[in-house]
């Protein structure tokens, strides 16, 4: 932070709300729609107060019709608006999968470049709150499989605040995944924080011994692990991918070329995951830099259980990261 700029303390939730509010003021075409975004104030209280501020035409409560209101968002985007569609959780987005995959992702291509979809879809994702197997999916990586959409995963307050506007300015559909465990996270931000890019990964902690590649809420587990590892003389570099499609592979390939080791921490399931994609790209393009096999720390391949101890055992944890990294950096460093 530069000196002189006032710093504000706020939660991730407030950062998202501020971002929506700013977008609503900056561009009259922007509106928010989704289940319970208005009178209820948002399932995760993100949009609390916005109905009073902007009125029901621009803060639109929808029926429980994911396919209709996501599709309506696509249509409205083609019709000249800049909709922000909120889907309560990624699980419910599956009810709108037809619209996201068959329409939003394909329209530009099918129409030979005539109809782009400047749409933003926000949704909560991730486990860790004991809401069991139908509310805890982490499917960002799965959406990242699909060409035609962009998939961004803000982890920090700065990104929660700054990615939305950039996404709205993008001519193509952008899916923003907000991990539900982050909403209460507090942090500091410049009062005049600016929009940030949605194209590049960031090195959140430079290090020399190993590259820990992660995104979203797992970033903080990785940073916690890196702090513990530093005490043992292991200097881990932590990379926050920020955007899963398009995937900024240059940043993590550069890192691996420096550290010669990589572990990927991904809250999604292991098989066919974004972690698998990253691992494959490292193998394809940095094979001769590797001093040991790439490893992955993902969620256990089980529908997430309700019981706390089982749920926590299923999710990637800092201790697992520490143990894995120590095993990988066993002989030197």
């Amino acid at each position, binding site marked *: 932070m530069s000196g002189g700029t006032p710093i504000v303390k706020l939660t991730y939730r407030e950062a998202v709300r501020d971002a929506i509010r700013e977008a609503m003021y900056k561009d009259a075409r922007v509106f928010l729609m989704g289940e319970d975004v208005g009178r209820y104030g948002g399932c995760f209280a993100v949009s609390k107060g916005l109905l009073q501020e902007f009125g029901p035409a621009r803060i639109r409560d929808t029926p429980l019709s994911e396919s209709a209101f996501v599709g309506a968002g696509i249509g409205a985007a083609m019709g000249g608006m800049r909709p922000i569609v909120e889907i309560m959780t990624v699980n419910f987005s599956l009810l709108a999968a037809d619209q996201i995959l068959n329409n939003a992702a394909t329209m530009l291509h099918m129409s030979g470049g005539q109809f782009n979809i400047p749409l933003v879809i926000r949704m909560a994702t991730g486990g860790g709150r004991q809401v069991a197997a139908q509310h805890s999916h982490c499917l960002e990586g799965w959406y990242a499989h699909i060409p035609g959409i962009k998939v961004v995963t803000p982890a920090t307050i700065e990104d929660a605040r700054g990615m939305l506007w950039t996404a709205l300015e993008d001519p193509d559909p952008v899916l923003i995944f907000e991990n539900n465990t982050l909403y209460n996270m507090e942090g500091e931000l410049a009062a005049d924080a600016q929009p940030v890019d949605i194209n590049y990964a960031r090195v959140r902690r430079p290090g020399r011994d190993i590259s820990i590649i992660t995104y979203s809420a797992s970033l903080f587990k990785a940073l916690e692990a890196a702090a513990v590892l530093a005490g043992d003389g292991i*200097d881990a570099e932590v990379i926050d991918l920020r955007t899963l499609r398009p995937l900024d592979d240059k940043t993590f390939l550069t890192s691996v070329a420096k550290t010669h080791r990589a572990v990927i921490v991904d809250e999604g399931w292991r098989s066919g995951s974004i972690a698998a994609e990253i691992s494959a790209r490292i193998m394809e393009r940095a094979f001769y830099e590797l001093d*040991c096999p790439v490893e992955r720390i993902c969620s256990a391949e089980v529908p997430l259980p309700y019981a706390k101890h089982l749920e926590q055992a299923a999710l990637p944890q800092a201790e697992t990261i520490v143990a894995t990294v120590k095993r990988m950096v066993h002989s*030197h460093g």
Partner: protein
Amino acid sequence: MAEFRMPSLGADMEAGTLIEWKVKPGDRITRGDIIAEVETDKGIIEVEVFEDGIVDQILVQPDAKVPVGTVLATIRSVGAAPMPTADRAVAERMPVGAEPPVQPSLEAGGPRIPAPTMVPPASTTERRLRVSPLARKLADELGIDVSTVQGTGPDGAIERADVERAAAAKKAEERPPAPTPTPSPTTPEVAPTPEVPPRAAKAAVPEFQVRMRRAIAAAMARSNREIPHYYLETRIDMSRALRWLETENQKRTIKDRLLPAVLLVKAVAKALGDVPELNGYWIDDRLQPQEAIHIGFAISLRQGGLVIPAIHHVDLKSLDELMEVLHDLIPRVRAGRLRSSELTDATITVTNLGDLGVEVVYGVIYPPQVALVGFGKIVEQPWAEHGMLGIRPILTATLAADHRATDGHRGGQFLDSLNRYLQEPAKL
């Protein structure tokens, strides 16, 4: 004469069986009439005709299965005479569409591919070496046969560090045997050795060189035996430093110009102020940090070998003073006229192999010192900063350090610090 062909009724249809003709030769037909039924995988489909005319000849009989595009019948226009059968070439029965009619099906009997001759399997008693890709690449570069390397990784896998150890050991062995090590060891060796072939026909290797090699051999062998090295490296953007140097040198006469080397030496001294554990000796099983920073500056000799005189109190000298020291020191090194303090006082070693085009230097520590800083050549490389890619002059700095004395974390801090100082050249 028009042709009525087996139509393609779907992308996956390759052939159809003619079930029934709804017409016979001589029948008058109009566009849109159903004139045949064809059986496909999906069932029986009525096939319409797209011509007006009279059925001339039926070429395919019911129950025949033919590929898409095959001529089924010919249609002549009203008023035209029937074509004599004899005129019709048999070949015309084959599909002659503008595009290839169908993919040849596998059952149709494509060329048989003989089973490949198997290479006799390699001896299975010989266990396959487990070598990390990086270690294998490094071994190639250093000329190390990986089968001679002892792996310390999981299940005996050979990793980078193992190759580096092997390379250091090999270097030590290659030197002539040293019956009596010189009591005052002069110089550590740094890979790769600048072995220069004699230019003119020289009678014999001068005595001082023989002694020097023996001293190097003794020190390096001891280093490799005793010191558990760890290596760290970092890439440093030198654009600020070089820009500053350029501006500075423009103001100076040739005699007073600065070389990048003095910036590096000074930055090392400053960084050692931040991480003092790297400046000292490992004696009596403990680290003995030294307050004074005397940097051993490796100077290679064209005849082979190198000498590492100490530059005293680098932290207290200005860049100009350091330049002066080098002007004094280097000719004396080349002439073999060094003071004893210059040969024994160094608390750390800096080796700058950038002049040779080497990019990265993995040094061997000169005991009882606990660290060696290596600098490669400054090369232009792609460099990402603030989300932008640019071309920058990049210097790779390495630290070889004694793991008994420090760990990677402190080493990392040192390189970080070094980088920081090089970003503010005016303050050096």
